[in-house]
């Protein structure tokens, strides 16, 4: 190791530092110096933070010991063609109808599977690797804006190690009519390793687009994805994340969004598969009268563990936030929702509502929910509601009285419960896709 | 009793709603102010009652010989100006009877009269309830919380009957009421008619005026009174619409 290490290093971070040292030769000459600078700086921060402890509020409901004890080091680039397995994964996850599609296999662009033709003028969509060369200012600005703190050590790790990802850059006033689809697949080649991907969406003033990101794969891997969204004044963006990782996989997703005046973000996060899945959304409403809709659901079985976290910080007046999250845990699964809405001093006339509803359906299943309000302005309308319970017995009985077998009746009710949140997705194509995936998941978990 | 002279008022955002109102109401009179939606009827009521959010840019209002516009809203109320709200406000957790007694005692204190204790108050309020044919259960609920539209209006009339104002302004108290509720409101108003008291009824429809006979009728249009007359004017308006009134003016 070289100049990177002249600061204290937490023991669990050490293997990652060593891996970074090994990679540095391979990287040398391929990347601009500014990027190497960010990578080194971020690695230093990660080394200093180490893994979060469970005393850290943002990580209190997730058990990281397995990951801490057995490092999952960044996987190197894979060679070779596209396997049949990858094609099968793609067929599962892709939207039925045409969309602009960018596919990443094992964390790197797979041009052969991507379809980027016919993008309207004023829209740039491509891999992160290409953007670093073609749109360096945009990419740099993104790194500049990302503040690294102890609660986000893996975002720092991501900056140090990301291999690729995507960038969507939309000029002011441009409307992207067709959905943009980003599909992350994993071949299983990264067995025991980690995949770090980085996304960036910049929507200019009054620009409009809908993006769905799907995550699937095979084998035992850790995906660590970071995406930044930057919505200029009046921009409107829908972002859907569908997480259906391999049964043994870890997935950490970090989404950081900044909203300009009158901008509108609509986000939906669906956690369906993966051993341990965590998705955190942080929205900073910086312009007046922005609107932020954060919805999502997790549907867990077996020994799955999933966390959804949201933080919305209203730093400007007149903002509006709506959140609906649904959680279902069966078997021995454990799910948690932590949502915080903050109203900064002076951010008057904020209207925010948050709802977290959950079903605990197994004798060993568990749910935690922590809806949180932090309000430092008086002219506000903020509320939250949270509920944890069982399926409605009366409804169940009603279905059974009509001759529907118990198992099927339960599945219908669970599906209806999750559907309530999915209905909030504004893009019909994506909504239908999600519902279909949920049905399949419920059908398969029944066996 | 009330002299409104060339009253101009605008909202905080600068929009001018009242553009020179002249109105003179004497003790013992009942005036009806009619006009289409957006003509400034409710703004006039709000400005007279001292609601914040309006700026009086021109003109004057004298009430009982005093400058009304310099008085804070609660002082106007204690001086006998009552506004029956178009949309009465809910106050959770505050018992309706307690609210009424608190308001009445605030006014009595202001007039140098002894305050009423719970027993004295209850006797008076029961008598009024009977007179107005309002159920006593209304008193035991929180102020306007969970009240139906009709109950809210009844509650306003009950408050008016208890507070015995010198000038009562009824802001569309008749809107959204069925015929029974309308008659009840009318009864409340008629019962309040007296030589010492003036009543201003603000309404969109002529309907209420079938039961409450006004001495004067004014037509408000775009922030101005464009026509005034006796009760026949109301009938004519009902027949020919506000458009005709505007043309006539």
């Amino acid at each position, binding site marked *: 190791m070289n100049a990177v290490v002249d600061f204290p290093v937490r023991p669990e971070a050490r293997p990652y530092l060593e891996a970074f040292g090994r990679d540095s030769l391979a990287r040398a000459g391929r990347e601009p110096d500014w990027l190497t600078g960010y990578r080194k700086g971020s690695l230093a921060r990660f080394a200093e933070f180490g893994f979060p402890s469970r005393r850290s509020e943002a990580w209190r409901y997730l058990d990281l010991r397995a990951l801490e004890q057995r490092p999952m080091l960044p996987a190197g680039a894979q060679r070779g063609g596209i396997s049949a397995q990858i094609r099968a994964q793609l067929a599962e996850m892709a939207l039925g109808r045409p969309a602009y599609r960018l596919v990443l296999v094992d964390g790197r662009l797979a041009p052969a599977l991507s379809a980027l033709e016919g993008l309207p003028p004023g829209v740039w969509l491509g891999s992160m690797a290409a953007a670093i060369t073609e749109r360096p200012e945009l990419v740099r600005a993104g790194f500049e804006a990302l503040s690294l703190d102890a609660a986000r050590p893996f975002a720092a790790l991501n900056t140090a190690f990301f291999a690729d990802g995507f960038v969507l850059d939309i000029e002011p006033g441009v409307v992207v009519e067709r959905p943009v689809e980003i599909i992350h697949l994993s071949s299983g080649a990264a067995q025991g390793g980690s995949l770090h991907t980085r996304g960036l969406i910049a929507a200019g003033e009054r620009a409009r687009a809908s993006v769905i990101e799907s995550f699937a794969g095979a084998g035992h891997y850790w995906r660590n994805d970071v995406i930044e969204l930057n919505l200029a004044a009046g921009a409107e963006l829908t972002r859907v994340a569908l997480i259906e990782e391999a049964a043994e996989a870890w997935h950490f997703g970090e989404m950081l969004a900044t909203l300009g005046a009158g901008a509108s973000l609509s986000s939906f996060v669906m956690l369906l598969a993966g051993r341990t899945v965590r998705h955190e959304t942080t929205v900073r409403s910086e312009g007046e009268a922005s609107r932020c809709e954060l919805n999502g659901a997790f549907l867990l079985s077996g020994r799955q563990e999933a966390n959804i976290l949201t933080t919305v910080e209203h730093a400007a007046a007149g903002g509006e936030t709506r959140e609906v999250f649904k959680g279902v845990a069966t078997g021995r699964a454990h799910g948690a929702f932590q949502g915080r809405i903050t109203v900064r001093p002076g951010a008057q006339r904020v209207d925010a509502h948050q709802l977290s509803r959950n079903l605990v359906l197994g004798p060993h299943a568990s749910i935690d929910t922590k809806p949180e309000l932090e309000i430092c302005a008086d002219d506000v309308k903020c509320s939250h509601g949270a509920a944890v319970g069982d399926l409605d017995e009366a409804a169940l009985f009603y279905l059974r009285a009509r001759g529907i077998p118990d198992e099927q009746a339960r599945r219908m009710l669970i599906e209806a419960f999750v559907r309530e949140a999915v209905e909030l997705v504004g893009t019909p194509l994506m909504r239908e896709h999600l519902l279909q995936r949920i049905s399949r998941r419920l059908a398969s978990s029944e066996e | 009793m009330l002299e409104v002279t060339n009253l101009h008022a605008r909202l905080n955002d600068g929009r001018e709603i009242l553009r020179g109102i002249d109105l003179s109401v004497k003790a013992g009179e009942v005036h009806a102010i009619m006009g289409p939606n957006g003509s400034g009827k409710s703004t006039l009521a709000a400005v007279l009652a001292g609601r914040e959010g309006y700026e009086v840019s021109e003109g004057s209002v004298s009430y009982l010989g005093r400058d009304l516009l310099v008085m804070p809203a609660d002082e106007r109320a204690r001086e006998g100006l009552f506004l029956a709200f178009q949309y009465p406000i809910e106050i959770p957790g505050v018992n309706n009877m307690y609210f009424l007694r608190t308001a009445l*005692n605030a006014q009595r204190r202001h007039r140098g009269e002894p305050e009423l204790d719970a027993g004295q108050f209850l006797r008076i309020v029961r008598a009024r309830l009977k007179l107005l044919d309002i159920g006593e259960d209304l008193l035991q609920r929180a102020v306007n919380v969970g009240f139906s539209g009709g109950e809210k209006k009844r509650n306003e009339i009950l408050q008016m009957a208890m*507070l015995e104002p010198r000038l009562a302004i009824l802001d569309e108290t008749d809107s959204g009421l069925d015929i029974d509720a309308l008659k009840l409101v009318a009864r409340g108003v008629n019962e309040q008619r007296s030589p010492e008291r003036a009543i201003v009824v603000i309404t969109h429809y002529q309907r209420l005026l079938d039961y409450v006979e006004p001495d004067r009728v004014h037509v408000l249009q775009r922030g101005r009174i464009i026509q005034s007359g006796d009760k026949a004017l109301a009938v004519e308006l009902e027949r020919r619409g506000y458009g005709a009134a505007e043309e006539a003016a």
Partner: protein
Amino acid sequence: MSASSETLQTLRSLARESYKYGFITEIDAEAAPPGLTEDTVRFISAKKEEPAWLLEWRLAAFRAWCGMAQPDWAKLQLTPIDYQAATYYSAPRQSAGPKSIDEVDPELLRTYEKLGIPLREREILAGVAVDAVFDSISVATTFKEQLGELGIIFCSMGEAVREHPELVRKYLGTVVPQNDNFFAALNSAVFSDGSFAYVPPGVRCPMELSTYFRINAAKTGQFERTLLIADAGAYVSYLEGCTAPQRDENQLHAAVVELIAHEDAQVKYSTVQNWYPGDAEGRGGIYNFVTKRGACRGARSKISWTQVETGSAITWKYPSCVLEGDHSVGEFYSVAITNNRQQADTGTKMIHIGSDTRSTIVSKGISAGRGQNTYRGLVRVQPRARGARNHTQCDSLLIGERCGAHTVPYIEVRNPSARVEHEATASRISEEQLFYCRQRGLTTEDAISLIVNGFCREVLKELPMEFAVEAQKLLAVSLEGSVG
């Protein structure tokens, strides 16, 4: 009419007053030297002529405390507390253990009269038995004989240790262990006095039991310890009131309250906390770090906490219920007001262990001035707690643009048949409500008082009558100067 019908006139006259309990009593006191070491603990134990087991118990707590750090997770900003600068024992010098009220220093009796708590027999409050705690020790307990006839023990903790050591030893620290948390450990090491009550099986305590806490001495911490036991089928309602003089430095209050309800027993614990809150600029005021917890040990037992928190510069307290017995019930009703620079981080924990346990939480937070008010609560349903139910309602009212209201609920469910519901709102008093009241002749101040009382009604109605009136007055006083 309900207790909430206290006339606004009274509220108004009160609202013009400032903290009226801020006087200092000139009294000869005996104090331990400042600082905290094992010797301090031994000094206190010796002063109180305690048995060896209790000294050992205290020392164990002290050693645990030495290895602990002051918790920093609450949303509070406070100046660091120098635990070595405080005095841990201060007692009014009087003939050891006054035999009757006539032997109590008249200056002390006058103090309690000024506070509205007469202790002389002919003046004592009807229906309320009072244990008066002045700085570190209990100075008088009323109605002892009458209660004794029913087998009810109500006395100071010091006396309980002497007269009923078997009961104290059996229950002390069983709900809040010595090493439970930093402040509980501190209290366990140095607690000086407090109240003790035991209600025998099947007895319904015929009057409210009450402790009135008064901090007087400067630079003195108060560390009282209260232990209440309701044996099978018993019922007791307990009131706690507190005041302190107006002083420029912060004073530390770290109490522990333990409640135990056996099978079918009920304990109702009500607090009106009015420690000196500090001045408008945040100088002085009590640092109130309190651990209160009740254990519903038996089936169908019930513990109900009601608190009105208006005082203190800092409030850190989470009266909790551990619902061990099947079908046991826990309740928490709270009003917390923070004005000027006051900070409150308060809430509850409901731990559902037994089956079919139920809990209710109603929290009303009012923030004014630069006050910061946090509700922090935990509802936890353990795997065995089949059919557990919780409902939480948590509302915040903001008055003025520089205050803050925060809601931090934790809901942790480990049983599929549980049903837990949480609702929270935050808003300000609407302009419409204010205008409506003013249009009926109420001044702005009276209108706010009325609306705030309405906002708190669900909680205030849980208070015993005597306290409800007091609490309403306090709400008005506490909000003084919060508008225009």
